[in-house]
């Protein structure tokens, strides 16, 4: 149990329903100060709803929520002074320039950074006088970050900060977040990119259908799979997960879309055994790939589904 004052966010038994649909089905979370915490899960898992409850935008149906040691419903304005938020689909006004937009958001806060300082922080110096309508997707995302960072927040909530961005734009967002963390800031983000969670987050909670199904550091989580490699096999004929589970070096088998994924500790011992087993069963090999185990494999292993549907 972590001491409460060290927690930036803590929630217990969080439930949020939309009519009959249960979006969040009892979530416990503790985000430590200075930590980057990721909510990883597919679309519709309940990540955004969880985040919006924590941000004070939605009221929880059940459970307790504390943000920076405070519950929502008291002096919310004072609490909002200390939070930076980036929502998933905000479209800032196309007609305003980058500087005008940041200046507007700066005016809402009593304390904060200077506008030019934030523009530099998000690497938009060259675009400071450009209209928002003329910005690329990556630049818009950095502007959204600037609006979140302008109050110099203790805690930053980010909802899918890099969804839809090309790899280069994603890298520059990551760079900005790493810079923010160096100053001691806390981040709670949602993502459905496992690379993002692995690179940015100290700890990750994997969410599916409104439940947390795994929690830990990315390294711990991958290790919990009990495998270094994942081998994906597709063969014609009678090959069931059970027939391959007993092979040497295999710690688990999951069937996904007509192929089998083997979590493998020692690939050197497995491969010859796998090939002779398939030959014995007269099941010719159609496809065989192998890669290092990732968070994605853990998700597949836990749910039998892919993390990303795109």
């Amino acid at each position: 149990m972590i001491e409460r004052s060290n927690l930036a966010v803590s929630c217990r038994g969080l439930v949020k329903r939309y009519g009959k649909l249960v979006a969040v089905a009892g979530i416990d979370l503790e985000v430590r100060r200075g930590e980057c915490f990721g909510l990883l899960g597919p679309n519709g898992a309940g990540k955004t709803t969880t985040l919006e409850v924590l941000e004070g935008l939605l009221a929880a149906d059940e459970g307790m929520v504390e943000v920076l040691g405070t519950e929502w419903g008291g002096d919310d304005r004072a609490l909002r002074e200390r939070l930076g938020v980036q929502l998933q689909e905000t479209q800032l006004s196309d007609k305003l320039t980058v500087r005008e937009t940041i200046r507007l958001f700066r005016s809402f806060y009593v304390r904060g950074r200077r506008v030019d300082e934030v523009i530099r922080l998000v690497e938009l110096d060259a675009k400071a006088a450009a209209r928002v309508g003329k910005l690329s997707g990556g630049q818009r995302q950095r502007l959204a970050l600037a609006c979140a960072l302008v109050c110099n927040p203790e805690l930053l909530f980010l909802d899918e900060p890099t969804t839809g961005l090309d790899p280069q734009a994603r890298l520059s967002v990551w760079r900005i977040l790493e810079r923010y963390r160096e100053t001691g800031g806390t981040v709670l983000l949602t993502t459905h990119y496992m690379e993002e969670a692995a690179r940015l987050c100290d700890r990750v909670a994997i969410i599916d259908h409104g439940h947390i199904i795994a929690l830990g550091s990315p390294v711990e989580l991958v290790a919990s799979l009990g495998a270094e490699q994942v081998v994906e096999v597709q063969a014609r004929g009678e090959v069931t997960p059970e027939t391959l589970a007993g092979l040497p070096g295999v710690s688990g088998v999951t069937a996904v879309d007509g192929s089998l994924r083997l979590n493998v500790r020692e690939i050197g011992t497995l491969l010859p055994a796998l090939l002779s087993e398939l030959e014995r069963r007269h099941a010719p090999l159609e496809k065989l790939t192998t890669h290092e185990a990732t968070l994605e494999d853990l998700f597949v292993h836990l749910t039998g589904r892919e993390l990303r549907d795109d």
Partner: protein
Amino acid sequence: MTDGARFRRLRPLAELTRVRMLEFIREPEAVFWVFVFPVLLAVALGIAFRARPVSSLDVAVAAEPAAAQRVEGLLRGAHGLRVHVMTAADADHALRSGRVDVVVEATDMTGDLRQGVTYRYDPTRAEGRAAQLAVDAALEKALGRTDVLEAHEEWVSRHGSRYIDFLIPGLVGLNLMGSGLWGLGFAVVSARTRKLLKRFAVTPMYRSHYLLSFMLSRLLFMVLEVAAIVGFGWAAFGVRVNGSFAALGVVSLAGAMTFAGIGLLVAARPKTIEGVSGWMNLVMLPMWLLSGSFFSYERFPQIVQPVIRALPLTALNDALRMIMNAGSPLAATWSQLAVMAAWGIVSFALALRIFRWT
């Protein structure tokens, strides 16, 4: 509270207002509808309804050639009548389309009009009535009736009583309603669909500041809108402001604030532009029709007059006409100002209460 703290508290309001105005002037179409369109409307209506001298009453004579010639001869020299000889079918068409005001039909085949004439005209049109009376008097006189009364005429064509004098204040009122409702409604609902309101809601911004910034920006644009229309009316048609400009300013301000409040109320809940457009039309259409912007609402039945007078646009139009046309002092418009204030304050308070941020 120190001065510095007080200044900081108002800074978000100032920034929101500034941004609101920047967004508006960077939208060329909005500028057109608010400033250019009412001026074009004033030009079109000013020309269509320009005060015509009475001399332009048009008379169609539809008869057999001999009779027609006789009638034309009798009417020649009659003051203020223009006579056109045409076939019965053409005369009928000309009357229906308003090109002639009265048709004179003579059934007699010969030149003497012993069997009399028939006047055909539309009694609901003032010109029709006037033309019938004028033609009748001219014919009677030409055929030998003697006038017993010596009458003198004094012509009055004063500034302040022409149609354009009536129209310009109506256009000012209509424009203040339109730009208040459309301007605010679209801006608020578009910010809602773009999730910008939700983004503002997670900042410590005072929510009342957001709504007040719309009122303030309307106040500043109101000055320009009123100046554009009144200035144009003065330059093009010589429409004068007979009352004080200060009174005109106060009444316009009250109108702008009233419709800004109503605009915020209409935009308080809808999630789509289509949704808010429907509500806007529902709110504005009755006032377009009833509030006397283009013609006097006195023509509506007595029983609906109290309803019409309770509408905010009626109050605004009446107050504007009192100041601009009648030259009344501001104090004389207190009942209109009270109607507007009631609508504005109730709408704004309600909007603040039911406003949907997410």
